[in-house]
């Protein structure tokens, strides 16, 4: 029957057109654009194995070793330690120690009368690279260090170590192993400590066995960010009685700027100041008859900040985190005002800080004028006193941790720069690790999110940001491994920037919610009437073909 045959062919042709042309066309026109992402590399980053390499140089000065012992120099030695922090994060520390004898110039430098001068002239001789540590071993009898001092840590990356008594009969190996414990102590003071690094990983790793102190340190320090705004505010709640003058410009130049210059590799800082009038603290201080002064107890300090903060204003021109430092001059009727700590003692600095927010200092002026003085009284604020307190608070906020040197160690105070080179290195180590941890978490969670929700459009610029974040992360990890601390930090900063930009891109929110049931509600009026005849006729054709085959079978039988 040719007619029946024709109908069958027509049905098959229509089904073929629908399947070959219609479905791909529909698929192509309704799909969301999703650029390619380096998922495999991101999943590699999910399990992070960080290796931190430190170069240590141990220099023996004249009189510490016998000539036979010296013959074997130079010598080097690698020491590795591994820690598995959690299932996906591992740390490996690689200490590469090189031993050599001092050059003539270094000997000269070590002959300076005091340790500080020796430190300076050693620094003039050679610039040690970021992250490295140089230990000079000086004879036991040296007068460079006071009697009971074993180790002197300088302003740069050098330390002077008084050699323990060696027996001349020892060979070099014994000498070195005898020295190892001391060198290790020096390195753990001047370079990263395990606790700090684990604390820096807090974005990736659930904190379990971190000491309370390093936890407090890491909570206090403001999170790593490419830039910070530092705002000094003078709060004058009583402009009728006090006319306050502060030379903030000069104070910033002489106290804050050197520290910020030193910290320039870590982040960009901008400093500004303002004076706020009629700004009051949130709590009423209590009058204490015993000292005839107003007091703020430690418990009430948590309520002080909120009302003031509304007045501070946010920085309109940038979105970097702000560190606030407030100088509060109590009004004439509530002066003097003292802060008391938990054990009810007067806080000597009369200041306190709030983690990741900033610091407040109370500055009493009531003794600067008599009761008969004409109002408003002109008062010049002693900026040296104020800035000393704020500088200490700023160091805490920035995460320059307290180091607790073992007994017999002397740390040279950082001087006008506010920060010793090795302190900066410690900060760089933990900041690099923190950045890497944060960026890798951001990127992996973004990849996971995009993988789970298929409706999100991934634009090319997001794909580009993600890939650049991934490459920067890989380079940062590689540079850490190679011991190039400065580069590692730079790459980790780039990684964090790119990953945040990708994560917070507004285009990711477009069409986020386009549920399947609504989609099908729209498609059904078209799809149902079209598909039913096609499916039915296909079924019919199949059943006819079966029947025909059965007939043929029967006939042949």
């Amino acid at each position, binding site marked *: 029957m040719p007619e029946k045959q024709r*109908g069958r062919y027509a049905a098959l042709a*229509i089904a073929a057109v629908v399947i070959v042309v219609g479905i791909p066309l529909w698929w192509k026109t309704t799909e969301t654009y999703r650029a390619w992402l380096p998922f495999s590399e991101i999943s590699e980053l999910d399990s992070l194995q960080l290796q931190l390499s430190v170069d240590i140089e141990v220099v023996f000065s004249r009189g510490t070793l016998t000539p036979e012992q010296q013959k074997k120099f130079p010598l080097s030695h690698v020491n590795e330690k591994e820690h598995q922090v959690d299932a996906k994060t591992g740390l490996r520390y690689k200490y590469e120690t090189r031993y050599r004898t001092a050059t003539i110039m270094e000997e000269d430098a070590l002959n300076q009368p005091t340790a500080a001068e020796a430190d300076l002239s050693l620094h003039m001789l050679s610039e040690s690279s970021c992250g490295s540590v140089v230990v000079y071993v000086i004879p036991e009898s040296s007068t460079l260090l006071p009697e009971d001092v074993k180790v002197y840590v300088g302003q740069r990356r050098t330390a002077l170590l008084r050699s323990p008594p060696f027996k001349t009969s020892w060979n070099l190996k014994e000498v070195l192993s005898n020295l190892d414990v001391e060198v290790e102590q020096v390195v753990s003071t001047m370079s990263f400590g395990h606790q700090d690094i684990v604390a820096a990983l807090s974005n990736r790793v659930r904190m379990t066995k971190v000491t309370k102190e390093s936890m407090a340190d890491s909570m206090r320090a403001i999170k790593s960010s490419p830039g910070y705004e530092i705002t000094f505010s003078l709060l004058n709640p009583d402009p*009728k009685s006090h006319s306050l003058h502060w030379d903030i410009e000069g104070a910033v130049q002489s106290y804050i700027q050197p520290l910020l210059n030193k910290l320039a590799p870590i982040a960009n800082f901008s400093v500004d100041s*303002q004076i706020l009038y*009629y700004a009051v603290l949130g709590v009423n201080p209590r009058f204490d008859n015993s000292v005839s002064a107003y007091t703020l107890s430690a418990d009430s300090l948590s309520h002080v900040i909120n009302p003031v903060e509304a007045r501070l*204003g946010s920085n309109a*021109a940038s979105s970097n985190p702000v560190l606030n430092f407030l100088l509060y001059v109590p009004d004439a009727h509530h002066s003097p005002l003292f802060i008391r700590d938990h054990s009810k003692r007067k806080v000597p600095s009369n200041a306190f800080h709030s983690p990741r927010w900033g610091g407040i200092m109370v500055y009493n002026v009531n003794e600067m004028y008599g009761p008969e003085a004409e109002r408003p009284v002109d008062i010049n604020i002693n900026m040296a006193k104020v800035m000393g307190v704020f500088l200490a608070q700023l160091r805490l906020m920035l995460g320059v941790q307290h180091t607790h040197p073992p007994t017999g160690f002397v740390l040279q105070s950082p001087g006008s720069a506010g920060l010793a080179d090795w302190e900066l290195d410690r900060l760089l180590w933990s900041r690099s690790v923190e950045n890497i941890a944060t960026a890798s978490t951001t990127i992996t969670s973004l990849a996971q999110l995009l993988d789970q929700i298929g409706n999100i459009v991934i634009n090319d610029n997001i794909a580009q940001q993600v890939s650049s974040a991934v490459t920067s992360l890989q380079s940062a990890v590689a540079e850490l491994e190679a011991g190039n601390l400065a580069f590692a930090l730079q790459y980790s900063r780039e990684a964090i920037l790119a990953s945040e930009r990708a994560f917070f891109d507004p285009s990711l929110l477009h069409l986020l919610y386009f549920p399947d049931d609504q989609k099908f509600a729209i498609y059904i009026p078209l799809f149902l009437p*079209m598909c039913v005849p096609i499916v039915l006729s296909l079924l019919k054709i199949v059943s006819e073909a079966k029947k025909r085959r059965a007939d043929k079978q029967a006939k042949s039988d």
Partner: protein
Amino acid sequence: CWGKQNLKSLLKLIVIALTPAAARDEFQEELVIRPLHSGDIYASFQFRTLWDTDFLQEGQKVSHYRLFPKSLGQVLSKFSVRELHISFTQGFWRTMQWGQPFIPSPPGAELWVWFHDTVSDVDGNWKELTNVLSGIFCASLNFIDLTNTVQPSASFKPLGLGNATDHRFLRYATLPREIVCTENLTPWKKLLPCGSKAGLAVLMKSEKLFHSSFHSQAVHIRPICQDEQCSSKAWELRQTLNVVFDLHTSGQGKKEWSLFKMFSRTLTEACPLASSSKVYVDITDNPELFELSPATPLLGQAVVLGDRRTYSVYDLSRAETFGQLRSFNLLLRWKGDSDMLRPLLHAERYVAGFGLQTGEIHTVIYNNHPYRAFPVLLMDSVPWYLQLYIHTLTVTSKSRDNKPSYIHYQPAKDRHRPHLLEMLIQLPPHSMTEVTVQFERALLKWTEYTPDPNHGFYVGSSVVSALVPSMVAMRTNFTQDQPLFSSFVPVKEESSYFVRVYTEPLLVNLPTPDFSMPYNVICLTCTVVAVGYGSFYNLLTRTFQVDEPSPPLSKRLANLIRRMRGVPLLT
């Protein structure tokens, strides 16, 4: 003891000597109260902060603030702003009843900014600036984009120092729909050095301020000269707040008012940071009209808007102003009625026509001067969805064609740019000039409609700027002791003064679709396609066979009966 005292005073002397000789910033505050002829009260606050610094200086960043608010200073230096004027207004200023305001503003929000001529990406800066300002003032300024921003060529000249005329660096935008309320007032008050804790700002209680016929708050920032020779520059931040209280209706028909009645507060002190703090009351029409207490011996005269006015001046920095009660409350009783004031320049606007396709915008400008003609600049910014037919533009005065001497027209681009029409029109004396232009309403895409499209779409006020002939000689010389309200617009010549008049914003209905339409359309098309497809499919796949026609029903019945009877069947 005496020695100690002496030492102390010596120390104090040293301290005073050490402090900077002249304060580099200065703050002034002022309140002007003018009883209006309609029986309303016009209160105008002005706060001025002068700062002797340069935000735009290369290399040196200004970052230490005293009286000038830090948030605005940062904005100025980050976006290289040369001049910034922003106003938020609730209600419409009725020029015919109230005369001219000291500083005019259109209903809604208005923002115009002159950028420094070193800015390369003005549009980018403008976009970011509007976003930042919208954060500072809690307003929807972030809705300002290229579709409602224009660059007027002549109407908005810089008010401050410098005669920049390249309008590529000027951006002007209005949001006529913006509703102004307390959340805008609070950040505005926060910019004042004394906040609302002392000085005139204590009167600003929002429930009173917004219970008024007109409320307008503004911030104007511009660079100005410190002295007549202009040897040193300073930045001026002027915050103004204008309110018109309708005391006639809220005061139970009694025509008397006091500070307490208006603001539910009295004044107790000046802001201690202010170098001058004054209250002015316009008593030009006294004593026929009203009676003022407490009376003050201090009288001041100022030439404002082409008119010489006399003011009672109350100096808040003097203790005797507050009297025995330590509080200052002004009381005023009306005695009689007076005629309505006729402002020399007045403008209004309305939309004419019927249906949802075409319409006509009418702008009417009145020159009430009895014998002087003067030119005015009319600026209109119309959104792109009203497609102006510029060939239908007509200007008629005294039923005669009045050809504008200057026309600047920038046509709109759909979804990119609004229309901008600027004209210089000569107004004949004592005349009414009518400007009409026809338009067609565009159909928007369904996502472009606002949430309540049937409310209509706002078209911002037109702006009429003019140098109006003055009745009295204006003071062109620069004096520091002039009251603030009379010194905002620089006066270039004695014979005329500058006035800007805003017309009403328009509310235009656009053809609005049924918003369930897309789904209906999808369903309908799908059904049509399915029906067509079904029959087509049927036609193609069905096989047709010639069938034996079945015998009709009667024949079948007959055959049934025949079969029962055993008679041969019919064929």
